[in-house]
C-alpha cells in the first residue's frame, strides 16, 4: 500500500507540475478511495474488488459515458472545438489583406529590449519604425537605407541574427504592428510583412459576429454555428460542439439517407447474427458428438479442429478474403471457377457465413464438448434402461439440457456477432453496394459497419449521430441479453 501511495503521490505531483487539473482530480480520487478501502476494517469485499473496479471504471465505464454524452451533442467535422475556440478561429479567418494587397520589406530587431521592425513599402518607398505598440513613419535621413532604399538601420535598433530569429519564431508569427483604422501589419516571414484588416468583429455582449467588409451580421443559431441573421443557411465554419438534445436520435428517424437503408440493414444484422450462431452451434455440436465416439486418432482430430482458435482472427479473415479472390483465389482454383463472390449480394452473404463458421467452429466445439461432459451420465443410462434409442436420448434429453447450459454463451455469442465489426469490415467492407441505384448500405453491412460508414464517411465525420446509433444498438443488444439471462435463470443463482 505504501508503494502504491508513493506512486500515486509521484503521479499527482507530476500532474501538478504540468497543471493538469483533470488528472490531478482522478489521481487524488483513486488515492483517497484506495487508502480508505485498504485501511478501513469494514470494507473487506472492496479490498478484493477495488483494482478491478478502478480499471473497469476508467477504461470501460468512462468511455461509455462519454459516448452517451456525445450522442446528445451536435458533434461532427467542423463542430469539434469549444465555442471560444471557434470564435478565436473565426476572428483569425476574418483577417484579410487590404484592397491594395500592401506588403512591406522588413528587418526585425531589438530596440531597447522591445521587439521591433523596420518596414519599407517598396511601392511608395515610405519607411516605418514599428513596435507592437505603435508604428511611426520615418522621414528620410532618420534611418540608414540600403541600395534599394529599404530602411535597414535606425538609432538604437539592433537587427536580429538569423539564430535569434529562429528562436523567436512564435513571437514573429504572432506579432501585430497596429496601423490606423483597426488595420495592422503582420510579418509573413522574417523579411516581409503585409497589411491586414480585421474584417470580422465579435461583440461579446450581444454575441453578434459582424463582417465589416460585407456588412453581414451572424448570430449563434443554437446548433453549433454562427448563422447569417437574414439567411439561416449561410453559416460560418468552424462551428463548435453544441448541445442538441435528441436531434441525433430524431435524425435517425427523419433523415431519409439514414432511415431508408436502416431497416434492411437491421434485418440482415439480426439474420446474420442468428444464422451464424445456429450454424456454428449446429456444426460444433455435431463435431463434439462425433468426437465423443470411440474413434482412433481422436486426440489428433481434436488438435486440428481447434487450430483456427489459435490463429489471430484478423489474419484469418484477411487470408480468407484473398482466397475468395475471383482470379487468383484458392476457392475458385479448387472448383475451377471464376465466381466473383464480392459482387453478388447472396454469395457475399454466404461467404461471410462460411468464413465466420471457420472462425467460430473451434469455440462452439469446445463449449459443446464441455457441456456434453457436464451432463450427468446417469441420466443417459436411465434413459437407455427405459429403452430409449441414441437419437431419442440426444433429442429429448441431451439437447434441451445443452441448450439450457449453453444459453448464456449462445446469447453472448449472438451479441458478439451482432457487432462483429472486424469480420464484415475486413472481409467485404459491407459490400457489394449498388451505388448505381443510390444505395448507401451494402448487402453485407451490419448495423455497426453501417454506423461506421455513415459516421466516418470520407472527410465528414459525425461523432454525434454515430454515438446515437451506438446507443440504439446497445439498447437492443443489452435488453436482449438481459431478457435471456433472466430467462435462463443464471442470475437466480447469484442471490
Amino acid at each position: 500500500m505504501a508503494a502504491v501511495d508513493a506512486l500515486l503521490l509521484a503521479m499527482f505531483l507530476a500532474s501538478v507540475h504540468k497543471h493538469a487539473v483533470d488528472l490531478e482530480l482522478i489521481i487524488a480520487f483513486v488515492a483517497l478511495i484506495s487508502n480508505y478501502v485498504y485501511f478501513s476494517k469494514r470494507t473487506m469485499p472492496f479490498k478484493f474488488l477495488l483494482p478491478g473496479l478502478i480499471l473497469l471504471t476508467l477504461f470501460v465505464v468512462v468511455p461509455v459515458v462519454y459516448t452517451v454524452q456525445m450522442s446528445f451533442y451536435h458533434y461532427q467535422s467542423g463542430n469539434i472545438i469549444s465555442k471560444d475556440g471557434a470564435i478565436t478561429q473565426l476572428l483569425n479567418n476574418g483577417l484579410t489583406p487590404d484592397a491594395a494587397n500592401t506588403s512591406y520589406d522588413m528587418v526585425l530587431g531589438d530596440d531597447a529590449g522591445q521587439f521591433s521592425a523596420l518596414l519599407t513599402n517598396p511601392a511608395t518607398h515610405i519607411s516605418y519604425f514599428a513596435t507592437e505598440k505603435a508604428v511611426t513613419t520615418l522621414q528620410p535621413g532618420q534611418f540608414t537605407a540600403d541600395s534599394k532604399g529599404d530602411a535597414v538601420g535606425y538609432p538604437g535598433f539592433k537587427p536580429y541574427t538569423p539564430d535569434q530569429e529562429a528562436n523567436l519564431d512564435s513571437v514573429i508569427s504572432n506579432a501585430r504592428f497596429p496601423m490606423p483604422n483597426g488595420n495592422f501589419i503582420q510579418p509573413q516571414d522574417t523579411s516581409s510583412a503585409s497589411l491586414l484588416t480585421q474584417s470580422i468583429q465579435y461583440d461579446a455582449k450581444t454575441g453578434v459576429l459582424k463582417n465589416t467588409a460585407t456588412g453581414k451580421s451572424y448570430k449563434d443559431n443554437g446548433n453549433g454555428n454562427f448563422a447569417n441573421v437574414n439567411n439561416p443557411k449561410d453559416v460560418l465554419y468552424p462551428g463548435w460542439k453544441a448541445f442538441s438534445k435528441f436531434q441525433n436520435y430524431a435524425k435517425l428517424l427523419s433523415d431519409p439517407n439514414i432511415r431508408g437503408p436502416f431497416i434492411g440493414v437491421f434485418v440482415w444484422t439480426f439474420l446474420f447474427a442468428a444464422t451464424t450462431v445456429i450454424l456454428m452451434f449446429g456444426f460444433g455440436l455435431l463435431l463434439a458428438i462425433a468426437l465423443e465416439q470411440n474413434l482412433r486418432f481422436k486426440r489428433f482430430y481434436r488438435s486440428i479442429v481447434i487450430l483456427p482458435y489459435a490463429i489471430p482472427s484478423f489474419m484469418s479473415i484477411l487470408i480468407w478474403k484473398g482466397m475468395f479472390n475471383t482470379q487468383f483465389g484458392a476457392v475458385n482454383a479448387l472448383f475451377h471457377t471464376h465466381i466473383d463472390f464480392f459482387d453478388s449480394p447472396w454469395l457475399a452473404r454466404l461467404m461471410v457465413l462460411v468464413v465466420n463458421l471457420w472462425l467460430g467452429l473451434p469455440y462452439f466445439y469446445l463449449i459443446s464438448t464441455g457441456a456434453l461432459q457436464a451432463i450427468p451420465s446417469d441420466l443417459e443410462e436411465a434413459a437407455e434402461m427405459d429403452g430409449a434409442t441414441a437419437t431419442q436420448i440426444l433429442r429429448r434429453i441431451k439437447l434441451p439440457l445443452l441448450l439450457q447450459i449453453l444459453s448464456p454463451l449462445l446469447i453472448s455469442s449472438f451479441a458478439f456477432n451482432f457487432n462483429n465489426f472486424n469480420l464484415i469490415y475486413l472481409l467485404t467492407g459491407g459490400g457489394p453496394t449498388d451505388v448505381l441505384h443510390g444505395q448507401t448500405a451494402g448487402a453485407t453491412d451490419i448495423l455497426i459497419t453501417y454506423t461506421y460508414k455513415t459516421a466516418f464517411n470520407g472527410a465528414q465525420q459525425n461523432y454525434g449521430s454515430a454515438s446515437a446509433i451506438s446507443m440504439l444498438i446497445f439498447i437492443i443488444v443489452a435488453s436482449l441479453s438481459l431478457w435471456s439471462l433472466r430467462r435462463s435463470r443464471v442470475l437466480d443463482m447469484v442471490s
Partner: protein
Amino acid sequence: MSVKTVKPASSTRKKPRTTKGNLLAHAYIWVLILFVLFPIYVVIESSFNPTGVLTSGSFIPSQFSWANYHLLFSDPHVPFARWILNSIVLATANSVIAVFIGGASAFAFSRMKFRGRKIGLQALLLVQVFPSFLALAAIYVMMERVYTVFPAIGLGSLGGLLLIYLGGAMGVNIWLLRGYIDTIPMELDEAARIDGASTPQVYWLIFFPLAAPVLAVTALLAFIGTFNEFILASIFLTDVHRRTVAVGLNSFVGAEFGQNWGPFAAGSLIASIPLVILFLSLQRFIIGGLTQGATKG
C-alpha cells in the same frame, strides 16, 4: 472433476456401437478437418512463395524459397522480432495481471455478501455488450490527455495499451472466474475459517490453488486475446518499433494496392506458433474452464 468420472463410463459403453455410426462420424470429422486446414495450407504455401501472391492457381507448390522468412528477420524496416517480443510481453503482462485482479474480484463476487452484488454482476455483463468501437474515440481522447503528463502510459505506449486491455477484459474475466469459484465447495472455506484463517488467507491458501485450472484458462484467453487484438493496437501504436505482431503484419497487406502476401503469410505462421503450442498443451483445461464458467455462472 465431472470430466474424469464421465469419460471412462461413456467410452466403455460406446465400444459395442456399430461401425456405421463411427464411419459417419469419421466422414463428418474429415470434411471439417479439410475445411479447417484449407486456409492453413494456403498460408503455408504462400509463405514459401517468393512472388508475394496468395496462392497461384495450382495446389502443388510450384516454387519454394525462404525469401519471405528471410525478409522478416533481415530488413531493418521490418523489426519483426521486435513485434513478436512486444506482443509476447504485452500478452504475458496482461494475462498475469488479469488473473490476479480478476481473480480477486471474482472471489469477492462469489464468496462475499455486500450491497450491490447482483446489480454489479448485471452491470458487468451489460457494459460488455456495448459496441466498443465507438468507445475508441473516447479512449483515444483520454489517452492523448494522459500522454501530455505521463508519456509512459499515454497514447502510443505499450503500458497504456496494457491498461486498456486490462480494463476491457475485466468484465468477461470476472464472469468466467466467478462461475468456476462457485463450484468450489463452501465447506472448504468454512473449515479454514474455523481454523482461524482470515479472508485474505482463505483467498491465497485455499481458493488460489483450487482455482488454478480456471485461472490458467483465463490467463490463456487473455494471452490469446491480446495477441489477436488489432483495431485498438493499430490506432494506438504508431511507432514502428512499438507495434504488436498483428499491427506490424497488417502493414504488408493493409494497402489496397501492392499487397504483399508472402511476408504476411510467413509472419502469421511464426506468430501463430506460440499460440498453437499453448493451446494444444492446455486444451484439457480449456474445455472445462470455458463451460464451467458459463454453466455454473
